[in-house]
């Protein structure tokens, strides 16, 4: 008998599953093999440590509490499908609305200025006629015309709405 076979037989013997002839050959092997005897000791102390110290603490299942939990789950299972969906969909819809609201606030275009360029210059305490004077002081007629055209275009774009 090999030591590996002996180990397996020791454990079978412990469970009462070893046939009589095998028990005899195991005992014979153990008499001559100190290594397997040590192994047997290891297993004995292992099983001693595993054995429960006594009955586990006595607890009873709280039947009333268990019954309530069962009834709650039954009610949950019986609830109409749309109600179960509603419970999931409503919070999601509220969250989505909040998200869209905050995004539109964050990315909405700023209101266009309500003042003409001249009014804005006056508000900044700047003379609005400087630009007009520059145009009027042009010597060449073509330059004057072109500057007037550009100035009128700018004024048209930001005209008071």
């Amino acid at each position, binding site marked *: 008998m090999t030591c590996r076979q002996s180990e397996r037989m020791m454990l079978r013997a412990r469970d009462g599953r070893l046939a009589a002839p095998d028990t005899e050959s195991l005992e014979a092997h153990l008499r001559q093999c100190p290594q397997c005897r040590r192994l047997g000791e290891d297993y004995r*102390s292992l099983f001693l440590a595993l*054995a429960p110290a006594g009955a586990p603490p006595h607890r*009873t299942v709280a039947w009333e509490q*268990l019954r309530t939990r069962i009834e709650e789950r039954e009610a949950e299972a019986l609830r109409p499908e749309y109600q179960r969906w509603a419970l999931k969909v409503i919070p999601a819809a509220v969250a989505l609305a909040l998200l869209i609201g905050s995004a539109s606030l964050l990315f909405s275009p700023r209101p266009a200025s309500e003042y003409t360029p001249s009014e804005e210059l006056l508000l900044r305490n700047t003379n609005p006629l400087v630009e007009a004077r520059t145009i009027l002081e042009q010597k060449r007629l073509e330059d004057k015309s072109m500057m007037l055209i550009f100035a009128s275009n700018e004024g048209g774009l930001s005209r008071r709405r």
Partner: protein
Amino acid sequence: MEERELVRLAQQGDKESFGLLVKKYEKKVFSLAFQFTRNAAVADDLAQEVFIKAYFGLPRFKGQSEFGTWLYRIGVNHVKDYLRKKPKELSLEIVPEDRSPQVDTLAEEQEARKNEQRRAVVMVCLQELPLKHRVILTLRDIEGLSYDEIARALKISAGTVDSRLFRARQSLRKRVNAFLNKERRTS
């Protein structure tokens, strides 16, 4: 009333009958959960969840096995699920039990303390084993189930119980010895 009749009534939604079945098996289910978790409060919760699962699983129970075996299988699977989700948490919950006998001499006291330490080491090593080894060791060497009962609870053959149990015990012994040897070297 016979158990079969209680099961039949419970299957029809009679909660009082199911309550009687709970009463009959509460100790067994709690003990199973407790031996795996070593925590009475957690075992309480697990036992309740096992009974809830059993109640809602009753329509699928065809009576091909005993109700107790079927319930035990639900219990083992539920505890396995729990252990898969919370293995780390559990390993911190090991509290050595006060199992020292009345000791008269100093030598006996030292021996008792040594045994207690060994037990704590064994329990830590047990929790580090792969789940299938841990389950089979708990069912056989702590709960004391027979090979046939384990085979039915785990839906495996008696031959598989034999070989898996051998590997699990061998693995646990090696781990415990390695742990103790390491401890001896450091102290």
